[in-house]
């Protein structure tokens, strides 16, 4: 039996029993919260299978004035008489792979259209296509960096 005096609700003040009870609850909640954060951190992936820097081939693989889709890396390589550029082939709307139709990029999923400089012509795409930095790898092949953005005018000049 618990003595009546301990059962009684104290008026106003914090008894030792209530303080310890609340402290224990607080500790449990804190530990649970931290464990939750740790679990959440483990869910967020630390690595990705997507390559950010990759070689795409040599200059002669890309004829002058063409857009070549590299499906594996989901980029278009643009070659003109001045040099080489790379633009994303992933629609900025919901991530479908774009097609080159006539003189624009089209998304088969929701019909977004982009012009040659990657600007949205029409459709639900919220932003322009990103352009990626292109340079020469030490072995002389053309290398694309999808983690470095650039403008549609910036080319790897080869002449």
């Amino acid at each position: 039996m618990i003595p009546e005096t301990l059962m009684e609700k104290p008026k106003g003040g914090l008894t030792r029993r209530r303080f310890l009870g609340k402290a224990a609850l607080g500790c449990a909640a804190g530990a649970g919260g931290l464990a939750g954060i740790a679990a959440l951190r483990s869910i967020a992936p630390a690595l990705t299978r997507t390559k950010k820097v990759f070689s795409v081939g040599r200059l002669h693989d890309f004829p002058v004035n063409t857009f070549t889709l590299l499906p594996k890396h989901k980029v278009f390589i643009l070659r003109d008489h001045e040099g080489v550029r790379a633009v994303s082939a992933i629609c900025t709307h919901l991530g479908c792979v774009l097609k080159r139709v006539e003189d624009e990029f089209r998304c088969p999923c929701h019909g977004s259209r982009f012009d040659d400089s990657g600007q949205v012509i029409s459709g639900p795409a919220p932003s322009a296509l990103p352009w990626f930095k292109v340079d020469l790898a030490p072995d002389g092949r053309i290398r694309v960096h999808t983690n470095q953005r650039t403008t549609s005018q910036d080319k790897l000049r080869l002449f």
Partner: protein
Amino acid sequence: MPDLSPGSQRSRIQKVSRNFFLHIHAPRVNLRSLKLTTTFGLGVALGFLFLILILTGVLLMLYYTPSEGQAYSSVKDIMYVVKGGRYIRNLHRWAAHGMVILAFLHLIRTFFTGAYLKGRRLNWIIGVAMLLVTLLLSFSGYLLPWDQLAYWAVTIGSNIAASARELTDALGMTQVFDPGGFVKQLLIGDEVVGQEALTRFYMLHIIFLPLTLLILMGVHFWRIRKDGGLARPADSREQDIHTWPTALWGELAVLMVSLAILMAAAFFFDAPLKELANPLLPENPAKSPWYFLGVQELISYSAFAGGIIIPVLFVAFLVSIPFRDREESHAGIWFSGIVGKRVTIASLFFSAAVTIGILFVNVNFGWLGDWFAGTPQVLIILINPGTVLAAAYAVWSVYQRRRTGSVHFSAMALFTCALVGLIILTFVGVWLRGPDWEFYWLRSNWPVQ
């Protein structure tokens, strides 16, 4: 000496209360709850479909391999090699679609009979949660066959989860703060749908979501008992009867009917299996599962508004209904009588007219982005066919509130509008959208590729 002969009062009560599986029922139920037109047996049918899904799912797990390289061929094995495998897969597929349909019908039934009133608030909210878990279950199962249909539906789905980016992009802060990208990474474990996504969806589909649904189901049924059975009007004259055997006969009938329909569907219609997933070649049109095509239509206007804002508002509306509507005299009456019927029918016509009207404008004349080149993205997020429709429904609901002076009827107006809108948009998404998400009256008009 108490009378324990079969058929006596006490033996009937004990049949139920002494059996672990049967004591989910109260020993006595109100006769009204057993009438077909009170519930149409929808909740019970949902429970049975879930059981069938667990049984067939366990059988499918014996042969299915959740790996990028083998998933597709293991599903093909199930369809063409395993004895009865095709039938089991068909049952699983159609039971899953049946659950989505019945869950919506059950929502409609409970809403229009005012079953969230009279202290049934918690159970209504649990029900909304169960609807969402059901949709997620169906969606997570969609990826597992690893065919073109699965791959692109889930690619689109995962990018919908990332569509908060549309807003952060428009504000130019995605580089520093990218909640959309984070949610997407949690979901698919990588930047594109691949092995990580398959592993995660498999885990969600076979253990996490079914377990969640099972627990919610237990609480849902328990609350029905705690709430004193199904909602019924105060002046209801029907009496209570013994659960054993009358209510159980009713449930058996629901089981038999749903099984019969399901087995016939599985016999006559095969679950689709397209070509092996090809991450390089999107399907055109790439469509999500049919129950998300209404949302996908909204997404084709704006990913953030259609994929996040409007669905969140709709769920918030559903959850808020029992907090706002306290008009308890409507409990248990279909459409709350003649006024409610009129409000519902008027809302039905209003919503159909407005929805079709906006779609007509959008399909024939385009929208802001087509009219004014360089419209800022924030404006398109805020003002697009989807948000305009949502606003029109809200205005109609406020008008009904003014007209009838009742929160209950304004909620009915909004619910009807949203539902009719969802059905029309889903219809358009399923049947009238072709390659490049262009509008076509007939599938035969699609351009040859």
